[in-house]
């Protein structure tokens, strides 16, 4: 076998070697080979209804790796450079199409590298598109293999394209800026930001409506005033915002806070050439501001939540934050005291009383004193107890504000009372769900808050001035 039939084993050997070599072809995966330098990584995506009202526009913010290389290194120097040469570290391209997919692919027409959505971190949806329905967007993102469920989808006040034109000062890319803002918003607790995984879950769950994030533009000069609650950034005309208004109505224009810079639909490009002095222009450079939330019914945007309502929403939903709570203490309730949230836990329950649903929300809150504006001696006995009582009241008020907005005003079950009811009483839910839209706004919600203050900061008594 071995020596005698020398020819046959060698043919077999050759055949085997050939087979092994052929198998290496399979290893390389040549067919769908994608080299990193042939790809264009989209970091942020803006999706709008086109101005003709029929088509969709997709705006992609594509990272320019060469520019990013300088900016990514040192913290201070890099960011300053990126800020100075704003707009150079990314490339904005817009595509239009009858469907979102077509618009998305049409971006390729002007890109030498293959457009890749696998690294998208943020998707901004224009307000008008949201008012007409966000379901097509979710469907598109869901079906495509590239878009992950870790992407954050957020609603713009006005067109999404304008948001993408913003050039953040601290980061070279909008997506990175967003990532940081999202991460650190927990220290403020005024924004609801969800991933598409959570959003689709909200949309698909029975007895649960969709709530998304809210993003708008602000000029660098404008400073968000947190202590000044409630902020006047509510959606104008909350009561008419029921979703039946004609889509032609140019809503973005009447938006006061987001205005200033290039937030108009076509205004973005037009504004650049305006005869403003360069220094003035730089100062007015719009920044993104993420606060509040957007409320949907089915898949249509019906209104906004402001900061305070959003904080109430976060409290009701047991979404952790370490943001401030401001109370007014003292005899005439003149002394403002800021409390810092350290931890809270919300338990919710939906009951049926004589066949009528009722909700119970119980919050256990813990925090520290962060600031006492005025002669409010924290070391006096009973002062902390008084503050705790006031804090509980303030927290309750925040949640009430949220409820009055989403439950009474917008009549959208974003807090999921229906979903809780379904889980607790599946049979009754089958009966109630037909006219849940009518039942939901009337569901009484009992709120109980227990606040506990643990620490008073690094000093005890307030500063005396004599």
């Amino acid at each position: 076998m071995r020596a005698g039939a020398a020819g046959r084993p060698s043919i077999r050997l050759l055949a085997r070697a050939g087979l092994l070599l052929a198998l290496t072809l399979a290893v390389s995966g040549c067919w769908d080979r994608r080299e990193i330098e042939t790809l264009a990584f989209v970091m942020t995506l803006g999706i709008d209804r086109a101005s003709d009202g029929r088509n969709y526009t997709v705006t992609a913010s594509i990272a320019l790796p060469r520019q990013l290389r300088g900016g990514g290194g040192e913290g201070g120097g890099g960011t300053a450079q990126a800020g100075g040469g704003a707009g150079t570290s990314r490339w904005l391209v817009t595509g239009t199409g009858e469907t979102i997919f077509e618009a998305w692919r049409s971006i390729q027409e002007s890109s030498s590298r293959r457009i890749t959505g696998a690294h998208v971190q943020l998707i901004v949806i224009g307000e008008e598109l949201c008012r007409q329905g966000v379901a097509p967007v979710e469907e598109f993102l869901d079906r495509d293999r590239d878009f992950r469920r870790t992407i954050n989808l957020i609603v713009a006040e006005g067109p999404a394209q304008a948001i993408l034109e913003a050039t953040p000062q601290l980061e070279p890319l909008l997506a990175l800026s967003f990532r940081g803002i999202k991460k650190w918003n927990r220290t403020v607790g005024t924004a609801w930001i969800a991933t598409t995984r959570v959003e689709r879950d909200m949309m698909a769950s029975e007895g649960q409506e969709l709530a998304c994030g809210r993003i708008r533009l602000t000029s660098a000069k404008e400073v968000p005033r947190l202590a000044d609650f409630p902020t006047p950034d509510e959606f104008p005309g909350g009561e008419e915002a029921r979703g039946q208004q004609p889509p032609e109505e140019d809503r973005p224009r009447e938006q006061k806070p987001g205005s200033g810079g290039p937030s108009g639909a076509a205004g973005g490009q037009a504004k650049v050439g305006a005869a403003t002095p360069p220094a003035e222009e730089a100062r007015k450079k719009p920044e993104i501001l993420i606060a509040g939330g957007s409320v949907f019914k089915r898949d249509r945007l019906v209104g906004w939540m402001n900061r305070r309502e959003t904080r109430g929403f976060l409290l009701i939903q047991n979404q952790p934050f370490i943001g401030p709570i401001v109370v007014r203490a003292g005899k005439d309730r003149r002394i403002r005291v800021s409390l810092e949230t350290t931890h809270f836990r919300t338990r919710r329950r939906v009951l049926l009383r004589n066949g009528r649903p009722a909700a119970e929300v119980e919050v256990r809150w813990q925090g520290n004193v962060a600031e006492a504006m005025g002669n409010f001696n924290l070391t006096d006995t009973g002062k902390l107890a008084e503050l705790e009582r006031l804090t509980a009241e303030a927290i309750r008020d925040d949640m009430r504000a949220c409820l009055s907005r989403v439950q009474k005003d917008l009549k959208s079950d974003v807090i999921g009372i229906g979903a809780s009811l379904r889980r607790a009483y599946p049979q009754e839910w089958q009966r109630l769900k037909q006219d849940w839209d009518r039942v939901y706004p009337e569901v009484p919600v009992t709120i109980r808050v227990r606040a506990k203050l643990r620490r008073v900061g690094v000093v005890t008594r307030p500063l005396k001035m004599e």
Partner: protein
Amino acid sequence: MKLVEGGRISERQATLLLVTTLIATSGMFLPPLITSLVGQDSWMAMCIGTAAALAVPVLLGALAARHPGLSLVQIAELVLGKVPGKTLSAFFIFWLIHVNAIVVREMADYVTTNVLEETPLQVVTGLFAVNVAILAVLGLEVIARSNEVILPITAVMLLTVTALLAKDFHPEHLAPVLEHGWRPILQASVVPAAFQGEILLLGMIMPALERRDRILRIGLWACLLPLLIILPLTAGSVMLFGPEEAGRITSTVEMPRTIQVAEFVERVEALPIAILLAGLFVKIAFFLYVAILATAQVSGLSDYRPLAFSVAAATSALSIGLFGDVVELLHFIERLWGPYGLTVEIGFPLLLLLASLARGLGKGGRRGAPVKGGEAG
């Protein structure tokens, strides 16, 4: 008479091999399918289906006790007679190849949808077929041993994925339990029963086991151990995505795609995909091995190895031709696979056992001595 398989595998190897065979598909494609049928109660359907599938190892155990040292097709020839036995075995072989082709198609569809978008299906199935054919030629011992490497990695990885996602779980999604009563759950549990019933393959490797008296034990463990993986994935996908979205996804690989831990454990799904494909590799190779072994035994060949490449090619071609599109594939698995699979998985060994009892063959019967099958030519 020459034995067509000389390999011997241990009790543990057999159990692990069968576990991989079960979880390769039922861990990947089954949870979303069942969730799409019964929503948040899918984990119950999984348990009920597995319980029903336990009938298969019980039947195999009884057969093995009566006819030790014989494989299913050999028993068939013995208890039913030459022509009916071989005819039935031929159907069984067709079933093996058919099921294997479906598995290949599931794998290939997954790969072309998620990883290699522009690669033709034929290329994926063709290359896979070559690889599994090589493994099948190398025999049962090699399949079992390569599985001993792959399964622990698969198990650890799948459980790690579940653990990393646990912080994103919403346990309330599992309520309400029994929202629509028992009926839909029982109906849906036919599908996992058919998946878990693939334990029938044990019937073909019974002669190769070191301990031939442990068939029942191996079969029961191999049926129940996969639950340790399948249940976390089923309940986990519901808790992660909610019942609606968990029923829309095509495979549980969507779960690792959403992992986000501490801002750096992200985009880790390449590893799970590779590992799950390795599991499918073992499964398909094992199915192929069993199919060609059965063919060799039925047709009286002295060696099964020459059949490997041709049957692998046929399987690959069949996998393409069986279904025009993914929707047909899904429809088949959802509606037809349950009854089709169970008919063979329970019907075949049950028929053999009844025939054996009726004719009083085997140990404990009137005519004691076991007869080796496969002498026809």
